[in-house]
């Protein structure tokens, strides 16, 4: 499966199991918090599971500030629960801490706060900024590589929401990344087709996202964002020289939970205890589920 030498052998079923465990953690922490964003956290579960557990990213949990690490920036900061669940799965934060989500004094703020929480590169939450930050970071890392010992050129991965693409700044960043030929930048768009006020195509149509990025000079791929094998293949494909890459991951908001799937009402609402129990039962009964 892997085209990149040196990476561990890719185990799709293990990655799917991680995604399922991440989903359960998302639902439980949101239920405990009583507020937050399940829909766009569940839709990105395979994306983060593939990035961190296939793995695609090179990093060291024992040395989070390893200078040559690949960076991850969650541009759609409201999907913080999927990131926190991933950090807990990695052992970077204790699983018990997930229950403190959104509480006073917690490191798990409603949107990621880099000053409080290790493993978060930069605070996000105001949409439209992550691609610019990632592009600046990718450029800075490339300069460090060129001016330094040329040990390893780190890559920058960022996950954007599709509704987020309505922010004009995203396209300022898209121009910038193409001009500076940032082939160490990989953006993943969680194309779940929903935003707070309704469907993305009704609220403000985005159309063919991959074609838009391609017209800005990017290498653009469409994949099924719940197919970890397809995600892994797209994420590990050799970079197109001098071009940033965007992977448009076609997903379903609320994926994994029958009554949340494709339902706009589950953008920013926490489940009740009963809903959480039902949702977790569905996930735990799926073929991918494995206890630790």
């Amino acid at each position, binding site marked *: 499966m892997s085209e990149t030498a040196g990476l561990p052998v890719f185990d799709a079923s293990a990655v799917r199991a991680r995604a399922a465990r991440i989903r359960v953690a998302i639902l439980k922490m949101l239920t405990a918090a009583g507020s937050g964003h399940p829909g766009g956290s569940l839709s990105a579960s395979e994306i983060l599971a593939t990035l961190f557990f296939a793995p695609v990213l090179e990093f060291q949990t024992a040395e989070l500030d390893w200078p040559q690490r690949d*960076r991850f920036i969650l541009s759609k900061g409201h999907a913080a629960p999927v990131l926190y669940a991933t950090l807990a799965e990695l052992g970077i934060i204790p699983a018990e801490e997930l229950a403190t989500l959104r509480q006073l004094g917690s490191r798990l703020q409603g949107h990621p*706060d*880099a*000053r409080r929480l290790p493993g978060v*590169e*930069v*605070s996000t*939450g*105001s949409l*439209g*900024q992550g691609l*610019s*930050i*990632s*592009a*600046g*970071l*990718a*450029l*800075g*890392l490339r*300069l*460090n590589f*060129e*001016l330094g010992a040329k040990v390893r050129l780190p890559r920058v991965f960022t996950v954007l929401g599709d509704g987020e693409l309505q922010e*004009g*700044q995203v396209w*300022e*960043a898209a*121009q*910038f990344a193409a001009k*500076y030929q940032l082939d160490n930048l990989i953006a993943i768009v969680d194309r779940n087709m929903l935003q707070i006020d309704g469907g993305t195509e009704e609220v403000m149509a985005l159309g063919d996202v991959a074609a838009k990025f391609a017209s800005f000079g990017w290498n653009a791929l469409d994949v099924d964002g719940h197919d970890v094998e397809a995600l892994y293949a797209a994420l590990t494909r050799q970079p197109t020289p001098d071009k940033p890459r965007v992977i448009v991951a076609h997903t379903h908001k609320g994926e994994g939970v029958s009554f949340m799937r494709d339902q706009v009402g589950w953008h920013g609402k926490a489940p009740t205890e009963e809903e959480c129990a039902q949702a977790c039962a569905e996930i735990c009964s799926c073929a991918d589920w494995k206890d630790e």
Partner: protein
Amino acid sequence: MGKATRAALGETLIELTDSGLDIMAVDADLAGSTTTAKFGAVYPQRLVEVGIAEQNMIDVAAGLSLAGKIVFTGSFAVFGTGRAYDQIRNTVCYSELNVKLAPTHAGVTVGPDGGSHQMLEDIALMRVLPRMRVLVPADYQSAKAALRLAAQTPGPFYVRLGRVEAPEIYDADERFELGCAKVLRPGADVTLVACGVEVDAALEAADQLAIQGVSAEVIDAFSLKPLDRATILESASKTGAVVTCEEHNIIGGLGSAVAEALSEEHPCRLVRVGVKDRFGQSGDPDELLRYFELDPPTIMKAALSICVQSMS
């Protein structure tokens, strides 16, 4: 007349890089005007041009800082602060990144470009942001010092720079510290607290006041945040009368900062000289300083009005 404060930007970035600091600059199609182009001519890889896209400029700077760079941003003050306010707030300050905003062309002395380009609210916008430090240099040498301080101190900074040539006030070897004002002239009857181009206007007003027998103490509140409360309060306890002088809206800037300090710790007579909650307009810089009542005669009148009252 000395060089403009903006002339310090490109030159100081070159010196700082020469000295071994890992400096970068990001500009938005104004590199010639802000003088970052000078830096780019010497260090081409270290100047990043984003085009007319100020929001991207700030967040690209944020990203570069995450790679370990000390990053200065350009553009004009009106766009480099106001157009990208959310990026400055939610990324630069919230994450406390090593980004130094140093846009140029603040205030009415922008001149003929008019009100759309004359930023009069930037100090207010930057001052209310947690983790942001605000420096307002009065001349070329103090601008260089402000930029050096910003580069050498971790975290977000705003350095306010102007377009026009400014009279020389400081020598090249003058030392500046964060949170320390400069008492430029001791006096007993009234305190003139100024920043930016108004420091020279306050000095001229003090000369005129001296002729009339009024002894004015002149303070350069170059470090607007953190503000040197101790120096200002000490002067106010001596004189009992304070005039603030700034090329900025009287709401939210130096006048407000000094009013906050005085009203909490030493209430006394205060007059704020500044732009009175208005937008600017086209004109010659000197003409505009008179029109908006930022000139030495206005400062002198303000001083006399409270000196008389405090004496009566």
